[in-house]
């Protein structure tokens, strides 16, 4: 008889432990799941801007200069090459996300953060950047500059 009592007690204990463990586990999950979801930022719809008309006139962009403009939610770079051609690139450096700039003294594109260099076709030519800059298409329509995503 005492042996049976012991077994009974043991299985009861095991059952209670299992209930307790499951309860604690369920409690933790019910707390941690919403917290984890809360911490992940909601996705904001990607900017759909595929085409941007710039506020600058083509005649105001001198050769061998570059300037940053807003392309959707990200910065982009408009360059007038020394030869007079208009070009546009994403200004986000492919290395670590800094914003690049045009260097008139070198006549190419440069990132100040880690000394990355890109040529006038956006190709990475020196320093740490692993990929070329994303190219955009710059067109002159009358007295306006229209930049669009290259397809």
């Amino acid at each position: 008889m005492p042996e049976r009592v012991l077994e009974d007690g043991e299985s009861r204990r095991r059952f209670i432990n299992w209930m307790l463990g499951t309860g604690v586990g369920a409690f933790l999950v019910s707390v941690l799941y919403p917290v984890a979801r809360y911490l992940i930022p909601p996705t904001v719809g990607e900017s759909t801007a595929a085409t941007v008309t710039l506020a600058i006139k083509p005649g105001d962009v001198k050769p061998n200069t570059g300037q940053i403009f807003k392309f959707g939610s990200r910065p982009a770079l408009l360059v007038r090459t020394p030869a007079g051609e208009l070009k546009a690139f994403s200004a986000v450096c492919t290395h670590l996300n800094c914003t690049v700039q045009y260097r008139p003294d070198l006549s190419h594109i440069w990132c100040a953060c880690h000394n990355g260099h890109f040529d006038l076709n956006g190709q990475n030519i020196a320093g740490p950047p692993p990929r070329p800059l994303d190219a955009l298409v710059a067109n002159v329509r009358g007295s306006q500059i229209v930049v669009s995503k290259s397809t």
Partner: protein
Amino acid sequence: MGLPGAPYGKLWTWLDERIGLAELEKLAKKKQVPVHRHGLWYYLGGMTLFLFVVQVASGILLLFYYRPSAEEAYESVQFLMAEVEFGWLIRSIHAWSANLMIFALFVHLFSVLLLKAYRPPREVTWFSGVALLAIALGFGFTGYLLPWNELAYFATKVGTEITGAIPVLGRFLVRLLRGGDEVTGATLTRFYGIHVAVLPALVTLILGLHLYLVQKHGMSVPPGVEQRGGATRSMPFVPNFLLRDIVGWLCALAILAALAAFLPAELGRKADPFAPAPIGIKPEWYFMFMFQTLKYLPSHILGLEGEIVGILGFGLAGLFLLLIPFLDRRAARGESSRMFTWIGIAIIVYIVVLTYLGYTASPTR
């Protein structure tokens, strides 16, 4: 000391009966600090702690004027610097004390490393110390962004983008850190929360553990001293060592006041997400050696992107640092382990040289 019963008057007795002051007193009296030729390094941990207390106090004061949003952060710091009486002083003390604290922390870490104070049974003390280093760097990184100026904006862009190099989880972690795909006001709010709530809570726990373990195990005597028969003398912590500590703290406070008064913290230009990264952009000095390493790495190494190699390298180096108590088997057995002394020296030389290059190499080439 004192007669049993009522040594220091009625209030003491009343408190003693309720919270056990006599036991605390006994504990404080028991603590001894060994005296030997490397004793100077014992002061660095206390120095770091003191500067941390300065950080907490000045940080709380800054909270009264700071506003954590992209529209107001820069202006609120500008107001604090220009209009609020002694605002410049509080902010400069916070900025300088942060730098001195990290410096003291590094010296503390390397003295513990070179004197092999991580030997058993102090492994967990070492682990908690390395965790505190990581938290201190986290404080520095998140705090740097809060004034929302140009330098901080790009430093944060780069710093968070580095997380993206982690395999598989990278992009997810970048979004989690930034509170979105880009560094925006959402990042500022997030960093603010981490800086003033999450990290302080973590520090309270881990610093508590660290200090408890230091009390439990007492000061470590370096192997070199032990081999010569151990420290022959010791001094009581209260008051002898504590008074020496306080002398050091007062000196630190004087240096801090001088730095804050003569070289007040700058604010720079407000962050503009649509401006190119400024020439000469640099992180805080304690991230400089990593920053400079990333500059030197070519775009591809063995088919991998250069920065991924660099970041994995630093990750492994951090892991190595953490696990030193387990890796240095000779020191654990009480034998001399010259190899780990040289590894320690090599790490110091690497950090010093790369930091030096970071400040002297031309940013534009």
